[in-house]
């Protein structure tokens, strides 16, 4: 994330803490808006501390403070600008030599040197702020992880829950009911359920959940092996899972336990094989009709 984005987010949050929500809501970049909202949520917990931290100057951007860490660069920059006196006034001969050598190099391509300097500075700031950023964004998935681990120990299997939650097979049925009924989460809508073939004998089912009430999203992934692809069905919790699971079964062969009517939905009932698996080989004939093999590429 660039420092400009960080600056913008901090400004917006400060404005919002003072009561002006319009600037956040009028953003057209959805990613930015969601990050700002997440930051606002965190900031609202202790607005005064946030204000203190950030109201002086959002990101330290004056050259002098940074260049204290890298004197050579500052001297070279001054030299590029034409100010040779400071360089010549350096008393340390080793340092002066280094500076002059760097200046010669920089004079060959002053633009790229300046850009490089800029980059280095940005990287440093980003590293400092990355920890901050990681902290702000993780609110919804982190919350789910905390609540889920409290109720169902060992249900969440991944540590970095920024993008998705990897759920353990055995606790999925109870966790899904919990996600729907728990008031602060209230995921009442299963947006999409996809099946994946990850290769290496692993299949995965991904659930995109969404809450109409609180307007937050999450993604849940469950992994199974190809030898025993069985996942508990959640069709009692979200009724649309009925058809989504039939489709995943049809295409990938993941069997959902507890489904009331586990049969193929898109392909005929007597089709053999699971088409969306990467190692799928189409059958030779179907009821006497010869099936042509798919050509590679576009001949």
């Amino acid at each position: 994330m660039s420092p400009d984005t960080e600056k913008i987010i901090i400004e917006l949050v400060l404005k919002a803490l003072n009561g002006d929500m319009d600037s956040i809501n009028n953003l057209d970049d959805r990613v930015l808006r969601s990050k700002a909202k997440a930051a606002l949520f965190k900031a609202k917990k202790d607005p005064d501390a946030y204000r203190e931290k950030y109201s002086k100057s959002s990101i330290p951007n004056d050259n002098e403070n940074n260049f204290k860490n890298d004197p050579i660069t500052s001297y070279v920059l001054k030299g590029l600008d034409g100010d040779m006196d400071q360089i010549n006034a350096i008393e340390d001969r080793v340092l002066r030599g280094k500076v002059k050598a760097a200046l010669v190099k920089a004079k060959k391509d002053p633009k790229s040197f300046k850009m490089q300097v800029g980059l280095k500075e940005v990287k440093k700031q980003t590293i400092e702020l990355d920890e901050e950023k990681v902290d702000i964004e993780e609110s919804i998935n982190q919350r789910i992880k905390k609540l889920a681990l409290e109720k169902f120990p060992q249900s969440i299997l991944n540590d970095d829950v920024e993008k998705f939650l990897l759920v353990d097979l055995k606790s999925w049925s109870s966790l899904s009911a919990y996600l729907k009924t728990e008031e602060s989460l209230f995921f009442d809508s299963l947006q999409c359920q996809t099946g994946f073939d990850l290769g290496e004998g692993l299949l995965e089912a991904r659930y995109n959940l969404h809450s109409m009430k609180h307007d937050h999203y999450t993604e849940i992934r469950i992994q199974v092996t190809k030898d025993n692809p069985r996942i508990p069905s959640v069709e009692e919790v979200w009724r649309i899972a009925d058809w989504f699971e039939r489709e995943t079964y049809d295409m990938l062969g993941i069997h959902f336990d507890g489904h009331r009517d586990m049969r193929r939905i898109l392909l005929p009932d007597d089709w053999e094989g699971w088409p969306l698996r990467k190692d799928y080989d189409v059958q030779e004939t179907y009821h006497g009709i010869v099936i042509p093999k798919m050509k590679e590429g576009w001949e």
Partner: protein
Amino acid sequence: MGVIRGEEMVLNIGPQHPATHGVLRLQVKTDGEIVSEIKPYIGYLHRCFEKHCENVTYEQVLPFTDRCDYLASMTMNFGYVVAMEELMEIRVNDRVQHIRVVMAELQRIASHLLGLGAFGLDIGAFTPFLHMLRDRERILDLFEMTCGARLLYNYMWIGGLSHDLPVGFVESTYKFLDYFEPKIDEFVNLLVHNKIFVERTADIGVMPQDVAISYGVTGPNLRASGLNWDLRKNDPYSIYNKFDFNIPVGQGGKGTVGDCWDRFYVRVLEMKESIKIVRQALASMPKDGDVHQSLPKKIKPPIGSIYRRTESPRGDLGYYIESDGSNVPYRLKMRSPAFTALSVIDEIAAGWLLSDVLAILGSLDIVLGEIDR
């Protein structure tokens, strides 16, 4: 002769039937005229869209998305393009955004015209169907002027559009909008408040809100049940947050909230809102800007996945794209709104008469191409 069972009759509506919107088979168990159970059988139009997408490049996926919902191709393209641009973090210029909104809203009007006309046909009103098709022809003429195709456009590309607007498009669109707005009122007079039509559709097939959310029903079907949820306002993409429009919500105008009449009327009102959006977009469209400006030379998205929803005339269309860094998608899943809309038919149509089942099916406005992919 064997025993003749007199309790229940199993009837097959389709796959060849004038009233099902495509090749759909509904196995219906009836007791006289009252239906006790409906089982939809789909898959007659399955064309392995997702498997194809794993073998062609990202740009080559675009014509495939057209053919999924062939009656609203622009919005299919739009959804895919928005998802890909978010994955690759491309920003397109203002002119492209405005043109995309204009095309998507015109497509919404065209799709609703056909859906409402076909619904009227199912109920037995033959004339409004032809009037709506006549107006839809004009929209298709506008599309043909722009990109040469009447039904399957392949117009919105990742990072831009395939063609810029031709000379005279804006004037023609304004003419069309001025011609079309009074036609909606004509249509409302002819059909919407007609006593026989109201009796056929009011209080039929009521879908309560929690059933709708649990079954994943979205779009006009969900709004007719009283919930104010539209992705263009609640989760804006492109430049929809710059335009001023209302979201029509079903209020049980002639009966219960969430019945067939509400689903019908919400679509009629949505057409009016789309007209508003098109006018605003045309008025604020920047005159200069290159539509091919942000087309990437190579489409190789970073490794990762994205799930993005956009509002198509039938509900929210979602694309789950997983990329492994190459120029071919690793997995692409299309979550189609009609798929979820059809799954709810057993819940809301069981217990009604046979004619009502067909009326409810018509009010859900499904397209089989999207369900089967």
